[in-house]
């Protein structure tokens, strides 16, 4: 009698220990998964936190891009002259014509912001090659970017948090940021002194981040690129912009395109050894070799609400073979945050009707 009893006890103890071990294994696996997903890291800079910060600048972002929220679509083509083919095997750099779906925007969080609120204007393009390769690029009219890292971009965005009492951000917050981030000085000087104009058409748009062009021999070259305007700028004092109405940039674009196509030269700048690949606040010296690789021809503009650019994510890391991201830390961060913004606005499409209300449609 004693024998089997003892053995039953042993089996019972063993089973309890085994169940405890199983519980530990499962809890450890679940914990590792949660840790990887950031559940234990409230201070991790996630795409969610980034796009949330972008929407704290005021306005109702639902259904819209969380940054560069106000924009207008365009279509046209990229006419490659073939000069880029020796630098990169990207199919759209071989001489030929490639369709473009693009977007002009101002770098604001509020999709209803007046155009004069956009110190930074942007151009996004999606250049398609027949074999399915795509080159997407989001470019700004500033010569450099305002910060070098995603963390700094988060901080400078939070410095623009809307103060609900004042109805605008606290200017001291931005001053504090700029005082502690000397790398932002070049951008800030541009923002203070660059002339204001009344058009998207007379601006040059810069890739800001560096990329790599890969040629047929496999050689990798560090590059930046610019869409250089062919239109003489019409400079006006800032105070004159208010009289033009809240949507003067869109109206100007439509007026110009009614007269004919608009053109930009796509110019690639080749880095020299030592030029920074990973710091978009630093301009490269002006004497670097440049190659004009073709012309962007913009033919038509469309309201974003039902325009062809609406449902594209202009992720700058969507690149054809022959073009790769550099080690600039802003590029992966842009990719991750743009994806989050795209996922949000696609799910919020009901908040941004495709058929604009009557009053807007008659514009």
């Amino acid at each position, binding site marked *: 009698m004693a024998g089997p009893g003892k053995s039953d006890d042993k089996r019972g103890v063993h089973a309890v220990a*085994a169940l405890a071990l199983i519980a530990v294994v499962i809890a450890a696996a679940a914990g590792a998964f949660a840790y*990887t997903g950031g559940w234990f890291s409230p201070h991790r800079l996630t795409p969610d936190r980034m796009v949330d910060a972008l929407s704290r600048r005021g306005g109702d972002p639902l259904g819209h891009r969380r940054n560069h929220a106000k924009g207008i679509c365009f279509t046209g083509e990229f006419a490659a002259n073939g000069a880029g083919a020796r630098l990169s095997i990207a199919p759209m750099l071989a001489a030929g014509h490639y369709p473009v779906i693009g977007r002009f925007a101002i770098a604001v969080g509020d999709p209803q912001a007046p155009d004069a609120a956009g110190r930074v204007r942007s151009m996004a393009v999606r250049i398609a090659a027949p074999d399915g390769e*795509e080159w997407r690029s989001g470019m700004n009219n500033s010569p450099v970017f305002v910060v070098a890292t995603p963390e700094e971009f988060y901080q400078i965005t939070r410095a623009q948090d809307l103060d609900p009492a004042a109805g605008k951000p606290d200017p001291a917050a931005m001053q504090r940021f700029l005082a502690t981030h000397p790398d932002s000085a070049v951008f800030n000087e541009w923002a203070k002194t660059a002339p204001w104009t009344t058009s998207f058409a007379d601006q040059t748009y810069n890739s800001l981040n560096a990329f790599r062009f890969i040629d047929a021999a496999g050689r990798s070259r560090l590059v930046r690129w610019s869409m250089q305007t062919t239109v003489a700028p019409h400079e006006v004092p800032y105070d004159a912009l208010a009289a033009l109405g809240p949507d003067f940039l869109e109206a100007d674009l439509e007026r110009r395109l009614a007269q004919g196509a608009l053109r930009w030269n796509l110019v690639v700048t080749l880095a020299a050894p030592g030029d920074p690949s990973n710091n978009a606040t630093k301009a490269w010296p002006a004497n670097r070799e440049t190659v004009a690789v073709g012309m962007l021809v913009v033919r038509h503009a469309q309201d974003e609400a039902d325009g062809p650019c609406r449902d594209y994510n202009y992720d700058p890391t969507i690149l054809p073979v022959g073009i790769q991201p550099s080690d600039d830390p802003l590029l992966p961060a842009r*990719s991750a945050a743009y994806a989050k913004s795209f996922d949000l606005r*696609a*799910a919020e499409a009901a908040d941004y009707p495709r058929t604009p209300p009557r009053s807007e449609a008659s514009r």
Partner: protein
Amino acid sequence: MTDAGGRFSPLQRALHWLMAAMVVAMLFIGVGMVSTLHPRYLVLIAIHKPLGIAILVLAVLRLGVRLRRGAPPLPADLPWWQAAGAKASHVLLYALLIVMPLVGWSMLSAGGYPIVLYGPIHLPQIVPHDDALHAILRAAHAWLAYLFFVTILLHVAAALFHALVRRDGVFQSMASWRR
């Protein structure tokens, strides 16, 4: 039966363990990449897409092998609800192995993204470019991933229960490589 010792065939065992490693990697890569702005994001997403398609191909192959070769019977004394749970969870695991990559592929198609496996190797769009469809598929991809992970935890817990508590040979039918 599949093996003289009441085990899954060597091909089935090899596919199981290879895919176990791939799927666990996939789930951790997925949950990690959507929660970071770090440069590793681009590396993770470049792995996630071809790894997902590799899982889809292997899952279809594996389902065919399973339908042809079957599985060793569960112990006769296994309570009915445990046997039913085993059956249901295996159906769910097979379904997720095939559905998850298809939802991911469709989601990218609906989002208007090029579907790059490696360099110039692209997959075709399998659904129209449509943001409403993208929103549904994007949410489904995340929730199915959580369901997948929870189902795998249950699967592991049940396997260890067979190995350590019941000691009935079920665990060995997949885990043992002894001749």
